[in-house]
């Protein structure tokens, strides 16, 4: 129980008034950053990094500095859900899956319930991940080392497979959308050959299509266009505006315990590996849809459909800090910036950090507990405030959203071209909706396409073209088999149904 002792020491470090104030400031700032699409946790932390430089020179200052920065990160994780639910605009990549059920809930007038569910499950996911970090971090760190290119590819394959059966529409429309996503993901530099692809010598295309620009356009702008067409008002304006909604939602949440456990597990695994919060949220949503009793109704506004991605995203986002601390490999873009911060402060992330800078590490871990509690309190008390935004007349809020989206798109790369691109994606999103093409597969392929491609080609380089590498050891073999099983599950389940003599269309 040495961990408990160390953790208590950590709380002693983190509990000072100064650090608590930093947590509050960090979380509030993070929520704001998460709300603004495009700014993002990584940018937010990077901008504030120089401020912490002076702070880190004082004794114990490095701990305060990382508390401030990591709390911005927690805040951004919480905040990403807000615009997803209210306006169908994911503030962060990992909140895309939250829009699938969160936005329909808001349209039904249950924005408060959706927000509460999102925040609470975020908190639970983070808590599970922190407990994991506290007690079994050395084991986990060793586990992460077993992931080479084939293992990564099998994890991405699993994400795609878990998601593929989701779309309700025509399968060919799903495939068309997904292939468009892969094509967009291929634009720009190719890691494996170092060559430019599909850039047509246009400088603006050099950096490829950023996922955030596509998402802001497809979801945010597309939704505004639709709303304009359908009459200038929000459907969710009747949202309840008191704190009772929090308690009522809490009564409902224990029903989804299975989803919470599954999503936490998926999230922790993806954070540690490090696959990241975005695949975790998609995978967890896909699995919940497959396994839940109400799976068929996912996408129409189920609270469970908010619980699944949010729990996983937060669990992954939190556990992503573990490979950063123990291996020096960031599990997310924000963790990458934090890693840079550690080096600038003169700390060396890696296996010895836990031994040499125990104060710092345990202070950080303790701040994860406290920061998330502070974060939960901050966002929950603001639920009525956030929900009341929907009462502002559409004619006022729509231009504001447009401007915020444009600023967000610009901030991603400081490029005006991206703002135009966002508008193009907006029109595309509108057309997709009208023609009933699903957008989720496109987004998923755009965010994971190049990573999946890289790890596949790295595997092929290593095995010199032998596909057997995806079954070469029990770990990768299991993940690949699970992925294939999930991919073909609709066919398999139909076969089972036929074998039982029932109507094959049931599953």
């Amino acid at each position: 129980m040495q961990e408990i002792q160390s953790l208590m020491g950590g709380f002693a470090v983190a509990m000072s008034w100064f650090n608590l104030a930093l947590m509050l400031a960090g979380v509030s700032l993070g929520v704001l950053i998460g709300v603004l699409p495009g700014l993002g946790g990584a940018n937010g932390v990077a901008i504030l990094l120089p401020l912490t430089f002076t702070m880190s020179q004082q004794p114990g200052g490095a701990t305060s500095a990382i508390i401030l920065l990591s709390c911005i990160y927690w805040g951004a994780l919480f905040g990403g859900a807000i615009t997803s639910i209210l306006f169908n605009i994911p503030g962060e990549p990992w909140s895309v899956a939250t829009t699938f059920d969160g936005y329909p809930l808001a349209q039904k007038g249950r924005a408060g319930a959706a927000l509460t569910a999102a925040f609470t499950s975020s908190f639970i996911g983070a808590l599970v991940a922190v407990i994991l970090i506290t007690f079994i971090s050395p084991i986990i760190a060793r586990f992460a080392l077993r992931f080479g290119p084939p293992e990564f590819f099998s994890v991405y394959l699993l994400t795609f497979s878990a998601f593929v059966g989701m779309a309700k529409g025509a399968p060919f429309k799903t495939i068309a959308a997904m292939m468009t996503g892969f094509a967009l993901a291929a634009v720009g530099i190719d890691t494996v050959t170092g060559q430019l692809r599909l850039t047509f010598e246009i400088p603006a295309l050099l950096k490829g299509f950023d996922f955030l620009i596509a998402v802001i356009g497809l979801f945010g702008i597309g939704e505004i266009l639709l709303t304009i067409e359908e009459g200038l008002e929000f459907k969710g304006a009747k949202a309840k505006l008191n704190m009772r909604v929090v308690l009522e939602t809490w009564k409902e949440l224990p029903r989804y315990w299975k989803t919470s456990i599954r999503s936490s597990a998926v999230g922790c695994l993806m954070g540690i590996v490090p696959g990241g919060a975005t695949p975790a949220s998609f995978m967890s949503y896909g699995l919940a849809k497959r396994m839940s009793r109400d799976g068929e109704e996912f996408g129409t506004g189920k609270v469970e459909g908010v619980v699944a991605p949010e729990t996983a995203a937060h669990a992954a986002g939190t556990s992503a800090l573990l490979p950063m601390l123990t291996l020096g490999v960031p599990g997310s873009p924000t963790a990458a910036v934090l890693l840079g911060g550690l080096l600038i402060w003169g700390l060396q992330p890696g296996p010895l950090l836990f031994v040499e800078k125990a104060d710092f590490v345990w202070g950080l871990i303790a701040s994860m507990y406290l920061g998330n509690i502070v974060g939960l309190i901050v966002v929950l008390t603001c639920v009525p405030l956030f929900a009341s935004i929907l009462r502002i007349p559409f004619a006022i809020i729509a231009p504001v959203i447009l401007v915020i989206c444009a600023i967000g798109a610009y901030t991603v790369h400081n490029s005006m071209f991206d703002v135009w691109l966002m508008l193009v994606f907006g029109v595309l999103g509108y057309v997709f909706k009208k023609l009933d093409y699903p957008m989720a597969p496109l987004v998923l392929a755009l965010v994971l396409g190049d990573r999946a491609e890289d790890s596949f080609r790295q595997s092929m380089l290593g095995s010199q073209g032998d596909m057997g590498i995806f079954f070469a050891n029990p770990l990768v073999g299991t993940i690949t088999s699970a992925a294939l099983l999930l991919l073909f599950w609709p066919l398999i389940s139909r076969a089972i149904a036929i074998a039982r003599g029932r109507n094959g269309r049931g599953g």
Partner: protein
Amino acid sequence: MTRRTTAKTLLAAVVATAFSAFTPAFAWEPTKTVEFIVPAGTGGGADQMARLVQSIIAKHNLMKQNMVVVNKGGGAGAEGFLEVKGAKGDPHKIIITLSNLFTTPMATGVPFNWKDLTPVRMLALDQFVLWVNKENPAKTAKEYIELVKKAGDGKMKMGGTGSKQEDQIITVALQKQTGAKFTYIPYKGGGEVATQLVGKHVDSSVNNPIEAVAQWRAGNLRPLCVFDNERMPYKNKVAGDMSWNDIPTCKEAGVDTDYVMLRGIFMAGGVSPDQVKYYVDLLEKVRQTPEWKKFMEDGAFNQTAITGKEYADWVAKAEKLHEGLMQEAGFMAKK
């Protein structure tokens, strides 16, 4: 003590006033926020250095205007270089370089060249070290190369950052020098490569010191040689009883290959000598701070730092060197 400090400050103030009264005609100073462009993503080596410079300037009040770090890493850095190329005459943009200053235009054919920019100064040179897993039986570079040869062409895997960039160039140079053949596997970042080496998914790497030092200290990796013509000067114990200085050069180890990476600063073309001088002096002040010196030692950098014509000549020579290496490796873009 206090009185003397006051007197000194007073004197400094008088001198400063005197100068400011006469100098506007000569000394240039930024009149708005300076953009510090990093032609790579957040979190990498160039980004860390840029953000450290920004922090030091802010902490010591070395500049009246603000400095912001902007990442423009698209197209292997082409995005950043094209922006500075397009900002002809703009003195409020500086850019930090990696070897992609040379390799990106050669490998991709994107039209830019260091001659489109104005060289300001070299900040340091980044070293490369040949690393293997601690369980690798090879204790020296020579033994390792023998192992690679014995295993057969392409059987041993060299992990590195990016494709047709510095890590792969070193690998090709090493192959040419020794006759051993690796399979080169490109990853997105240096930290990832170090971890993959610890997990034995690759057999060796040519990580920068700072990317692999944590795993070395934890006893997971073993350095075989440094790709420079002199040993690294740092004699403080880093891992066990080894210091950076104890790592032999690759030449000493019998696999004569050397390569260092430029960490230098450039401005847009068409800026005035006064403007260049301002940044040369500013960065000199940065180099004198204890924070910078500590960073140099932590990352075991080669602290060569030259300016002016000497620097431009160095860059021209480095370009020639890269051209030769890229051509031999068949990495040049097809025209």
